[in-house]
C-alpha cells in the first residue's frame, strides 16, 4: 500500500496559481454551504447536503481532471461543477428547483448535473453511479478518446453491491476510471468501522487487481497530487486506481439529520482543528503566497457574490407545469399526453414548502 501525503513546510509541488485557485474555490464552497444551510433553516430551501470539512477532497480531486473528463458525482461533489466553470446562478436554481435549473426542478437539492461541464446526473441510490462510470470509461476507450472518468463515492457506498461490481469490472477491463472515495467517517449515523472491517477503503482495490491509495483528504495538495497521478495513469492506458481521501463530515449528513444523536462532539472538535481551509491558508501564508488581508478581502468578495447570486436565483418562478411530462421518453407517448391534459385541467397545486 502506498500513501501520499505532503510534508508540512515543504515547498509546494503544485504551481502557486493552482494552489491559490484551489483555495479560492474551497473557500467559495464553504461560503456557499454556510449560506445555503441558513436558507434551509429559514425554509427557503427544501434540503441541503453541505460539503463542509471536505472541500479539499472535492475541489482538489476535481481540479486534477481535464475539462473533457467526466465526473460521476455523489452527494458532496456538486461544488466540482463550479470549479469546472458552471455558473453560480443556475447552480443555485437547482437547489431552489426553479425554472432556472437546467434539470427542470426534477430532483432534490444537491443533485445538480450539467452536460456543459461533463458532470452527469446521479440518483440518491448509493453506489449506482459506479458501474456507470466504469461503462463510460470503457466507452471512451472503445471510441479512442483520451477521456478519463472520475467515479465519486462516500465510505458508505463501499458496502454496496454496485461498488464491488464496478471495482471488479474495472479490474477486469482496466478502463480509464479513477475511483475517488471521500471517507468522511460517517454514512449518516454509521461510522466507518461498522461499514467495513478492512484496514482501509484503499486496500480493497488490491483484491480487484489494481492500486489503492490513501491520502490525507484534508490536504488539498496531497489530494491533487494523488488524484493527478491516478488520472495520468488512466489516461496513459495504465488502468484504474482507487483513491481514498480521508476526511471528515464536520456538519450533519444533510439538513434533515441531527448528528448529536449518534456522534461524540469531542470527535468533531478534533477534526475542526484539522479544517482543510484553515490548514491550507496557514500554509499559503507561510509560503508567502497569501496574506491575511487578501483573505479578508476574498471572503467579503465571495459572500457578496453568493448573496447576489442567491437573490437572482431565488426570483425565478417554478418550471412551467407542462414540463412535468417532458423527458420521460424522447417524445411523449399517448398516455403521457393524456395525463398532461388531465393535470392542466385542474388549477396549479401549491408547492410544498414554497413561500406563500
Amino acid at each position: 500500500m502506498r500513501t501520499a501525503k505532503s510534508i508540512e513546510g515543504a515547498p509546494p509541488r503544485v504551481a502557486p496559481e493552482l494552489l491559490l485557485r484551489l483555495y479560492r474555490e474551497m473557500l467559495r464552497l464553504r461560503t456557499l454551504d454556510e449560506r445555503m444551510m441558513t436558507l434551509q433553516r429559514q425554509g427557503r430551501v427544501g434540503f441541503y447536503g453541505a460539503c463542509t470539512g471536505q472541500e479539499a477532497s472535492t475541489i482538489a480531486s476535481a481540479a486534477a481532471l481535464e475539462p473533457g473528463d467526466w465526473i460521476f458525482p455523489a452527494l458532496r461533489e456538486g461544488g466540482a461543477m463550479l470549479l469546472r466553470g458552471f455558473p453560480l446562478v443556475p447552480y443555485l436554481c437547482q437547489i431552489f428547483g426553479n425554472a432556472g435549473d437546467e434539470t427542470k426542478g426534477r430532483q432534490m437539492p444537491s443533485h445538480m448535473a450539467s452536460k456543459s461541464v461533463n458532470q452527469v446526473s446521479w440518483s440518491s441510490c448509493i453506489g449506482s453511479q459506479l458501474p456507470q462510470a466504469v461503462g463510460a470509461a470503457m466507452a471512451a476507450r472503445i471510441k479512442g478518446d483520451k477521456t478519463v472518468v472520475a467515479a465519486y463515492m462516500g465510505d458508505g457506498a463501499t458496502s454496496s453491491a454496485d461498488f464491488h461490481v464496478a471495482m471488479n469490472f474495472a479490474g477486469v477491463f482496466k478502463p480509464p476510471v479513477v475511483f475517488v472515495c471521500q471517507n468522511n467517517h460517517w454514512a449518516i449515523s454509521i461510522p466507518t468501522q461498522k461499514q467495513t472491517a478492512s484496514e482501509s477503503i484503499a486496500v480493497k482495490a488490491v483484491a480487484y487487481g489494481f492500486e489503492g491509495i490513501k491520502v490525507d483528504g484534508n490536504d488539498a495538495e496531497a489530494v491533487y497530487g494523488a488524484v493527478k497521478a491516478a488520472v495520468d495513469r488512466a489516461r496513459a492506458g495504465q488502468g484504474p486506481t482507487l483513491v481514498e481521501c480521508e476526511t471528515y463530515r464536520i456538519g450533519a449528513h444533510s439538513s434533515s439529520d441531527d448528528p448529536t444523536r449518534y456522534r461524540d462532539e469531542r470527535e468533531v472538535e478534533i477534526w475542526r482543528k484539522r479544517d482543510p481551509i484553515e490548514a491550507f491558508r496557514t500554509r499559503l501564508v507561510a509560503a508567502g503566497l497569501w496574506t491575511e488581508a487578501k483573505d479578508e478581502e476574498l471572503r467579503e468578495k465571495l459572500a457578496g457574490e453568493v448573496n447576489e447570486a442567491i437573490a437572482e436565483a431565488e426570483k425565478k418562478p417554478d418550471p412551467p407545469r407542462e414540463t412535468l411530462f417532458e423527458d420521460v421518453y424522447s417524445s411523449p407517448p399517448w398516455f403521457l399526453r393524456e395525463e398532461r391534459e388531465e393535470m392542466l385541467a385542474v388549477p396549479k397545486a401549491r408547492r410544498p414548502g414554497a413561500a406563500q
Partner: protein
Amino acid sequence: MPQWNIIQAVNDALRIEMKRDPRVVLLGEDIGKFGGVFRATAGLYEEFGETRVIDTPLAEGGIIGAAIGMAMYGLKPVPEIQFSDFIFPAFDQIVNELGKLRYRSGGQYSAPLVIRTPVGGGIKGGHYHSQSPEALFIHAGGLQVVCPSNPVDAKGLLLSAIRGEDPVLFLEPKRVYRAAKGEVPEGDYTIPIGEAKVVREGKGMTVLAYGAMLHEAEAACAESPDLDAELIDLRTLWPLDLETVTRSVQKTGRCAIVHEAPRSCGFGAEIAALVQERCFYHLEAPILRIAGWDTPFPYTLENDYLPLAPRIRKGLGELRGRRP
C-alpha cells in the same frame, strides 16, 4: 427468403446493425466466444472482436450499469441478460437509473440501450428460467417494452429498438425461440415500436396476446372458428397500441387477454382497465384474463401453469356465452 427461427433473426439483426453502426456494442455473460447460451450472438465475437462483443463478469447490475455509462457516453449498447429471471440484480439500475436518467437530468443525458433477454416458460426451466417480468418494467416507467412472437417481427423490432432514442427491454420468448419459424426478409428492414398487428380478423371477440402465448391463442382461435375471434399480436407492450386494441374491441364487444405472467397486477390488468375506460358501452361481457397462476413458476407442472391452447379455448368459449 430464408426460413429462420427467432434466434437466427435476432442474430441477423445484431449483425446488420453492428456492420451499419460502429457505436453498437454487445455485452453480457457468455455472449462472446460461446455465442450466448441460446446462441443468439453466435459468430459475432469472431466477426467484430472483443471490443464490440464483450464477455463480462457474472454480475447483471454491472452489465446494465456499464451499459448505461456506455450509452451516456455515446455508444449503442445491447446488453444481454441470460434469462429474464436473472435481471433482478440489475433492477435498481434499470428502474432508478435507466428509466429515469433522461427525466432527472432535464433531458441532458439519456441512455438509449436495448436489453435483450429470453423470457417465459416452456423449456423445463423451473422458476428461475421461466418468469415473465414485463409488468414490473412497464410500471417502472421510462422504458419501452417489446415482445415479438415470431422471427420476422423479432428482426424488424430489434433493429427499430437499437436505432431508437429510448431504452428498450426486448423480451425474447424462449418457448418459441426455435419453434417459431418464418420467411425472414434478408437485409435491412424495421418494424415500428408501438404498433400491434391483427393476425386474424374476426367479429366475435378480441383476443390479445404476445410472445409465446400468441401461438397458443392462435391455435385456440383456429380450433374454434365459430368464435370468430380477432387475434391481435401486441408486439410492443409499452407504449401499448391502444388504438388498434380499442378499434377491435369496439367492433367485437368482447375482449380476452392472454399472458403467461401471473394474473394479479399483470399487464392484462392494465389492458383491462384501459379497455373498459374506452369501450365500456361496447362491451357485452366482462373482460377476461387468461394468465399464469399467482404461484411461483413450477418445474414439473409447467404446462398446467401456462395458459396453453386448451385453457384459452375453454376461456374463449365461456367469454362468448357470457351476457352482462
